[in-house]
């Protein structure tokens, strides 16, 4: 009896030793933090003019039952239950031009009438971002079976994916005319404020 107890005790100690040495969630957490180089980044000089601000709303919908397919070969897919989450995201995009790519020609026609011609390149996204704070009241989340609740990490990942989906979408094709028109209005008003009578803004 004593020997049996002794053996069981030895087995238990060895099993616990292996289990404890295999996993350390705190260490894993520390490895994923941004490095010092990411935190301390220098401000770089820019010369970008923003002519149009676009506000966009996307509802990010995640349903694990549609993206996670069960296969015998992959134990990671052996899950009982689903997770679903709906989060609205507000994305702000600012379109404009790099002043360093701008070309301005001064064309004089008559002594009392002069024209400035401005050639604008294609507009690009100067600044983009989404709402930092979550309105908890607008988030819908549910989980079934053995699945855990939809936590903060998953919600943030869903928001990030939604933001990337907005960036990938070619929104400039829908608002290109507005961007062009706003650029023409802006440059015309700037140049006329300097005393010029006529401005021609040409866009690529």
């Amino acid at each position, binding site marked *: 009896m004593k020997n049996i107890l002794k053996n069981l005790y030895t087995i238990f100690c*060895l099993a616990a030793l292996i289990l404890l040495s295999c996993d350390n969630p705190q260490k894993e*957490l520390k490895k*994923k933090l941004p490095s010092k180089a990411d935190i301390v980044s220098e*401000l770089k000089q820019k*010369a970008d003019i923003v002519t149009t601000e676009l506000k966009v709303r996307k509802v990010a919908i995640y349903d694990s039952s549609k993206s996670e397919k069960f296969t015998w070969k992959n134990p990671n897919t052996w899950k009982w239950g689903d*997770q679903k989450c709906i989060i609205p995201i*507000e994305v702000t995009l600012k379109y404009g031009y790099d002043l360093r790519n701008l070309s301005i020609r001064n064309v004089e026609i008559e002594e009392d009438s002069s024209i400035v011609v401005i050639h604008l390149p294609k507009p690009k996204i100067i600044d983009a971002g989404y709402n930092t704070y979550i309105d908890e009241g607008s988030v819908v989340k549910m989980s079934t079976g053995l699945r855990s609740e939809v936590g*903060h990490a998953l919600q*943030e990942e869903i928001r*990030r994916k939604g933001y990337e989906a907005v960036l990938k979408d070619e929104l400039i094709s829908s608002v290109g005319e507005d961007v062009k028109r706003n650029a023409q209005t802006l440059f015309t008003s700037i140049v006329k404020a300097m005393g010029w009578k006529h401005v021609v803004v040409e866009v690529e």
Partner: protein
Amino acid sequence: MRNEHSSNKMSSGLQNAGQWLHFLFLIIIGGVIGLAIYGVKTWVDALKNPQEIVLENSPIAIESVRPKGELYVSSAIVEDYVTLHRTEKHLGLIPEEHSCVQILKQKVSFKIDLDKIVYTPDTLNWLIVTLPDVEYVASTQNTPFMSDDEDFWEKELPSTNGLKRKVEQKIRKRYDTAENRKRANKYAEEAVTAMLMQMGYEVRFTPKIEQSKEGLIGQ
């Protein structure tokens, strides 16, 4: 006698070897059980965390398109974070430490409002330009949250907005400084000068009054 002594020696040797084998066997069994428990734990963790998130296709609604007149003179992509620690008491006695991290990735920029620039013609080809003060602006591009136990933090922290606010303030404190604003003003003058020189102008800027610890001094 000698034969008895040598056979006793042999049997005790065999006994020792048997004990070592026994001990080795226990180590192997213990190792297998430990690995089996670890395997089950990994599988249970995998149940909690999805491998890859794929969103459903949903439409993008354009809410507003507004004209703007801003000149971005400097920017940087920054990541910073705050951590939070809590102790959970199992059965009111056994403590377990928990940690979480809220990271924020932002594009921080300094800009000037072009509508507020004042141009005053001086002589034929000279312009006196008065620039407005630069403004600090931050756009959020990622907000990852990490923790050692998602279920615990979901209950303990209903909203991460407080943590995000702290990181935002941390980033702002680091970048929205008098020195960076001074540098941004210099970049703004360079950008406006380059644009106006293309139109054949020479440019002079109205000096800014700089506040110092001793009082107001001209720059």
